[in-house]
């Protein structure tokens, strides 16, 4: 599955990047392709283009705050979770995605 994701936490120093790492690590383990954009103190990094988003099956928004350029995600199926969920049990998010996908097929 092709997945795009955004992580963003309140101070943008630590959890944004911890969550990104967790999502990447877990996707790899479960055999998915993922690109994670971080919105932290340094601004947007590893930015997702509209084409990348449109080409993905689903978006994971692991965010505690309102994100920049949210309109990019208007047309994609998505799952929104707190940053902590990505830290605590990232696999659960991926299972949840599979649930959504099954329902919609």
């Amino acid at each position, binding site marked *: 599955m092709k997945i795009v994701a955004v992580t963003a936490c*309140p*101070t*943008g*120093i*630590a*959890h*944004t*990047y*911890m969550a*990104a*790492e*967790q999502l990447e*690590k877990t996707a790899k383990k479960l055999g998915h392709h993922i690109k994670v954009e*971080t919105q*932290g*103190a*340094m*601004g947007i990094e590893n930015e997702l283009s509209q084409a990348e988003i449109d080409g993905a099956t689903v978006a994971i928004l692991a965010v*505690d705050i309102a994100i920049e350029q949210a309109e990019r995600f208007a047309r994609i199926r998505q799952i929104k979770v707190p940053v*902590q969920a990505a*830290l*605590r049990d990232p696999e659960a998010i991926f299972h949840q995605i599979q649930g959504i996908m099954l329902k919609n097929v």
Partner: protein
Amino acid sequence: MALEHHFVCPLPNGTHARPASALEEVARGFRSEITLVNGRTGQRANAKNVLAIVGADVRFKDPCRLEVSGPDEGSALPALIAFLRERFAQCDHEAPAPGRPAGELVLPPMLRQAGAALRPGTPLVPGIGRGRLVRAGGFRLPEHLPVNGVTDVAFEHQRLDRALDELIVWYGQRLAAAGPGVEREVLTAHRAMARDLELRETLLAAIGRRRTAAGAIAEAEAHFSARLTASNNPLLAERRLDVQDICRELLHRIYGAAARLPDLVLTVESIVVAETLTPGQFLALDRHWLRGLVLAQTGATSHTVILARSFCIPTLGGVNLAGLEGDDREVVVDADLGGLVTALPATVRRYYDLEQARLSGLSRRLRQFATQPAVTADGARLEIAANIGVAGEAELAFAAGAEGIGLFRTEMLFLERAEAPGEEEQYEVYRQALQAAGHRPVVVRTLDAGGDKPLPYLSLPAGENPFLGYRAVRIYPEFEELFRTQIRALVRASAHGNLQVMVPMLATLEEVRWCKRIIAEEQARCAASGVAHDPAMPVGGMIEVPAAVFLLEELCNELDFFSIGSNDLLQYFMAADRLNPRVASLYDPLQPAFLRVLQQIVEVVSARQKPLSLCGEMAAHRRYLPLLVGAGFKKISVASPAIAGLKAELAGLRQGDCRRLFALAHESETAGAVAGHLATFPVQQAAPLIRPELVADGVVAATKAEAIKQVVDLLNISGRAADPRAVEAAVWAREATYSTGFGHGCAIPHCRTDAVQVNSLAVLRLAEGVEWGSLDGQPVRLIILLVVRESDAAGAHMKVFARLARKLMHEPFRAWLAQEKDPDVLCALLREALET
């Protein structure tokens, strides 16, 4: 038939001395007999008699009445009613003491969780001290003074009567010179008590029974103390101290030095509590055991406080001491937070143990700087000298790293005595300071008395506005012999080292020329009689009157060096009394107008190649240091405890940055804009994110709050955060959104704040895990603190933090962090792992 007025006591603390003396002031203005009646107890008191009013024990909401009868009763009653309505209720309000931070005392999380209660006070000398409460002051008769057996009753009567009159005048003089606030009110109360008719009657009646003056004073003290103590009201019981003060003063006036009580002897670590403490009483305390001072009243400028600062004795002022009489419990003076801690359960004790550890860690680091010359990171030198008030401080100053004595205030020599010190005595004192200094310079300021620092033997009239009055160089011509004596002692002492004389408060060239003439005459006299001296002894001036700034060219023709007295210059220049909280925002060294004056002085004086120093409080604060360096100062003079810290601070500054900062500040429009530039000013840019001293192992912490305090303290001890509590608060603000315990026994507390001077990473490894509210509910043993400067949040270090955050998601990295024993190796590998 007497006129009557009924009212209910509106004072929550009852009619203690302050409201009583206010009522007495009004009552005294009329010839009628005025009586205050306490409706609850039936007690009657003469309203022209403070002690009687106080003794009537009127409490909150007691029904009361005033009875007025006499020739002017018709005008007295309305005046009294107006007073009761408009002013009486306000008598209870404490004026805000200078320097007290606005609002509530904010406790750090550890203390808050421990439920600690602090009695708030004004921090006068920073620091923390723990010890047994010891009360200074009090009243005892020296044993050798006889109390009975007077033969010449008339003589005894007369001298006691006269001493009381003199005391009333003396309180009046001190009142005229007193700043607003508590001190004024206390002096008013003292004076009212001193002129209390009942006190005088009690004293003189005892003489009639053939008591000596000493015996009479002791009797009166016992009589009124007993009455006030019996009142059951802690506030009244405290007024005993007023009576005791008056009695001590009377004894001193009649018997002089013979009445001096044996000095307070300390035998354990002690916190000395006193209503007031004179510089002499302070110096008599055994500093080996002295851990802190708590003064009920004193301004931030009193000489006692200046001395306490020199000797690093944590000091609080304006503390409510009710309920602590006769108590010798262990307490903590926390002059960093601004409070007295009177209950020390284990959790509070633990906090202060940690504070002690932090402070000693800090002073260990600073001690290394003390003996080094003061240099910026890019090699610019700044000479840091010490301000002292007594010769004995010189040695302390040099041990603390002073490169000279930049200001020896000589007032202390002249205070608390019946006549001015003679030439020999002064010569000895100056010689002693020079001896301690060796080849280093000692700048002695000639007597700055008068105005707010009255001397009894000069009988100077108390001016309306003492700061702008007859003081310092202005009184020299009238008291020429006093000045000549000091100059003679200085000229003779100049043979023993590098002595420089400095004249305070210069405003005109005439003053300078007059002083120089006297100095030259005394030098010539020494030369003629073959007395050894330094004929080239430099003569300089204080720049503290703004007029001097506009005479600098001419002053440079006359004088050899200058020192800016920034406290007075700022007060005079901004026309703002620094003790008046309402204009405190004007008394701000960051006012751009003031910075421009400083620059003008530096420009003119350095163009004429004369040495220039700054010896006011502005120099002692690390905050202003970059501005002083940027303005081009090459020398400053501060209280010795500040020296090592300033040297450490200086080592992290670059002269070029400081100059750019000063240029910005100089062009700013407001003090707020200057503060903004200062807050974002980078210090210690070159410091690496982590150093071995930011790693601590096997740390014991019972709670999350204890752990956070200790990891933040690492930043403070290593000189990265001057205000650790501000960093702690920022860390906790972040914890409040959700816990930074991310599981696996790790937590990554972090924040963005300019309370750190440099971006930092600190690692704390605990001996046992603590509850952190972690994602997996497990206790935390590994704590990694990240702090980024707010103004630098997009900087290069952020990439490092991001990389660290990502690596922490991998078990092998966490295991390595938890296990690597050697902090040096840990730092080196961490840097390598994160920066490449």
